[in-house]
């Protein structure tokens, strides 16, 4: 499976994402600098977490408008599985590839800790390796993870199976406790928690398999 990790100025979980992808798929992803928008075709695109452009103005706002996101949007709309974690989720939302917006945490503080997530829809390209309703442990590390969308959008997401993960407790004030959503087609996932930080038993989690690892395995299985 060929993967690309998009790197923006100031990206800081790009290496973490690449290490996780390689660990699970066995293939090193291509690190794509934001100016290399004609990157080779890949089976999977990942927008890493952390920060980008310092997250000045709004998280993900500058990256979302960068040239390469036009290319990412084109490929994502053509069906390439595209994952945005944390800052990557913010970028996808700011770019309009996913509905809603990520606002300042209700508690106003940066929060870094393990959280428990419920897999709401285990029937997506990113979650097929989980059981529906399964609880997994994945860390969050964000200041702006408070997911907001108007109530019609939220209902549509819930009814359309677009809610992939939900927090089991209130972490940041997100509407309906939403931790991760997909687009209608189900090939774009944005999530605030960091699955790439839970693919290695030494880093914690239940056993390093049922937590973050299964997400990447799901993508891999879908590619075949």
């Amino acid at each position: 499976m060929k993967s690309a990790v998009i790197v923006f100025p100031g990206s800081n979980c790009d290496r973490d994402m690449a290490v996780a992808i390689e660990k699970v798929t066995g293939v090193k992803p291509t690190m794509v600098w934001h100016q290399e928008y004609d990157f080779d075709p890949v089976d999977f695109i990942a927008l890493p977490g952390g920060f980008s452009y310092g997250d000045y103005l709004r998280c993900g706002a500058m990256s979302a408008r960068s040239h390469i996101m036009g290319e990412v949007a084109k490929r994502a709309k053509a069906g390439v599985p595209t994952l945005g974690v944390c800052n990557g989720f913010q970028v996808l939302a700011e770019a309009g590839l996913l509905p809603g917006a990520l606002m300042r945490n209700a508690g106003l503080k940066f929060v870094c800790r393990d959280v428990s997530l419920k897999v709401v829809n285990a029937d997506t390209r990113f979650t097929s390796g989980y059981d529906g309703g399964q609880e997994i442990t994945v860390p969050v590390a964000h200041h702006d993870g408070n997911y907001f969308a108007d109530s019609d959008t939220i209902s549509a997401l819930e009814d359309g199976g677009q809610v992939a993960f939900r927090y089991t407790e209130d972490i940041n004030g997100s509407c309906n406790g939403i931790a991760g959503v997909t687009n209608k087609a189900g090939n774009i996932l944005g999530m605030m928690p960091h699955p790439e930080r839970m693919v290695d038993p030494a880093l914690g989690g239940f056993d390093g398999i049922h937590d973050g690892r299964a997400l990447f395995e799901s993508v891999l299985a879908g590619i075949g």
Partner: protein
Amino acid sequence: MLEQEITPEIVKEHGLSAQEYQRILGALGRAPNMTELGIYSVMWSEHCSYKSSKIHLKKLPTERPWVICGPGENAGIIDIEDGQALIFKMESHNHPSYIEPYQGAATGVGGILRDVFTMGARPIANMNALRFGAPEHAKTRHLLAGVVEGVGGYGNCVGVPTVGGETNFDESYNGNILVNAMNVGLADANKIFYSAAAGVGNPVVYVGSKTGRDGIHGATMASAEFTEDSEEKRPTVQVGDPFTEKLLIEACLELMDTDAIIAIQDMGAAGLTSSSVEMASKGGVGFLLDLDKVPQREENMLPYEMCLSESQERMLMVLKPGHEAEAEAIFRKWELDFAVIGEITDSGHLELQFGGEIVGDMPINSLVDDAPEYDRPHVPTPKRQAVEVAAPDDINQAILDLIGGPHLCSRRWIWEQYDHMVMADTIQRPGGDAAVVRIHGTEKAIAISTDVTPRYCYADPFEGGKQAVAETWRNVTAVGALPLAITNCLNFGNPERPEIMGQLVGCLQGISEACEALDYPVISGNVSLYNETNGTAILPTPAIGGVGLMKDSSKMATVPFKRDGDVIILLGETKGELGVSLYQKQILGLDEGCPPSIDLTTERRNGDFVRALIENGQVDTCHDLSDGGLIAALADMAISGKMGAVITVGDLIPLHAVLFGEDQARYLLAVDASLAETVINEAMDAGIPVAKLGTVGGDKITVNDGVVNIALDDLTKAHEGWMPNYMTAE
């Protein structure tokens, strides 16, 4: 301004004494202009010249075979084999953090990162050692909130995990909080960059952010005592730009992969001035700088301002001739400023050009080697008498108060605001004895801990200095790592007072002795003096940052209890030392007697024994004993493991002394029942006092059949609750 006459008032405003001014006249053979005076004042400030501490710092042990570079460079370096090196240092940002806690703390983190990556390392771990005033003090809550947000705001954005630290409260810090930031970086041992400039004619290059009028006179501020009106000196605070710092890290590391750099140095306190003077001095050369070429953020900047500005996120480099274009392309790619601002000369002088004229010309050696050095008078702290320390009225309540009080409560509220996992190698997160960070792509890991017990240092600087070093050594050992070296940040009051100088000298003697005995050299450090407000000094606070190496991180030990039925074993001798203990301070409200004594031979023997148990795979649950003694360690292990304990202690010593005594060189282990006898026998064979206290299990902590009997739930609530409750109370 250039023409301005130098009056005694101006000299005084620059923090220079009349004698020091005479010295400048002698060095120049004429009167300085304002720019030159400004430059002498920062170069000769306490902060840059270490004039009060230098002669004492020279006595610290700094050498061992694994030390690649000791004090004197931007940071110290040790060898961790396999061609890898660790680069680390700790630094204070106390005064700015008191004035503007968010930006003060943030720029403190930024500064220490630059000290480390300027030498060729990728920063891999941040630590922060914080001291605040009494919780009841009106400013404490606001300062704590701002500092923590600032540390996180910078570190999180740059993407370097903040993996640990320490947090103390004491009324002596009411008007002088301490914010000490430490960073550890990883480099290839054969790719280290130093600051000595070389090669007459070689270009001097400025990279990073533009220069503004930030923090002019920050270095002299950091060297002056606080008075009521120094809160007015506000515009000297700088704003940090972690995004630019992140770009600067990547750009510098990319350039370091080429063969272009001769010397590199970050612009820290006193910015352009101190960095160029230090580079020239180390290389024995001169610098000619054209100030018109300095990238400027503001209009009409004067030479004085450009030389003294403390704008952040800037570096100075000397490149090999012909490599300018290659270097410039890299910095442009990262959207950073890049400018050739001068060249190396053989004049031995710092020459400054502005508007086509020479506006400053000073012999480099007069700025560095001729800086004043003082052997300030010092009187030793009088020895105290040992005292009896009373038992509490209610021992259960005393335990709850301590575990759920400001000094021993969980620091979770702090570290959850720090991204402590980014870079995906934090294998022991905050909350344990030492943070453990894996060396990326290997099974090796490093352990880091910062420690000092200021109340011990106040009561007995020598023993306190020893204890600070021993405690980091013990914390690093308790996770199973071999302690290799330390950095330090020496925070003291006004060195012009002999009793304060006595504290500094005493602590340094203690530190030296401990480093020597533990083969734990000092490789870098920082001194912060004049931490006084209206004549009241902080407790002497020599913060020590210790680093150790673990070859096989899968064997790492951690604090939480793991298995029902594990045997709880106490290693090390318990005499019940309660002088200057946390129990005495918090429960009895007293500060009397002598701090616990440290026997370094015992310390080493006990620690080496514990480390071997961990390395052999016999022990995976270990906690050292420090503040709060045995009961505090037991509570930590139970709370974090969500398992109770039943223990019995003898009655030769009063119960409160056994539980709260802070005797040193002790560790609490929880050992698989099948291995317990072996471990105990091995300890006895090694001549180490050892006691089997009881077993892990249940939902309570019980001592001596119920004399102490506390539900784990209550203890956990108290422990986790104090800080969030305090921070949300008005």
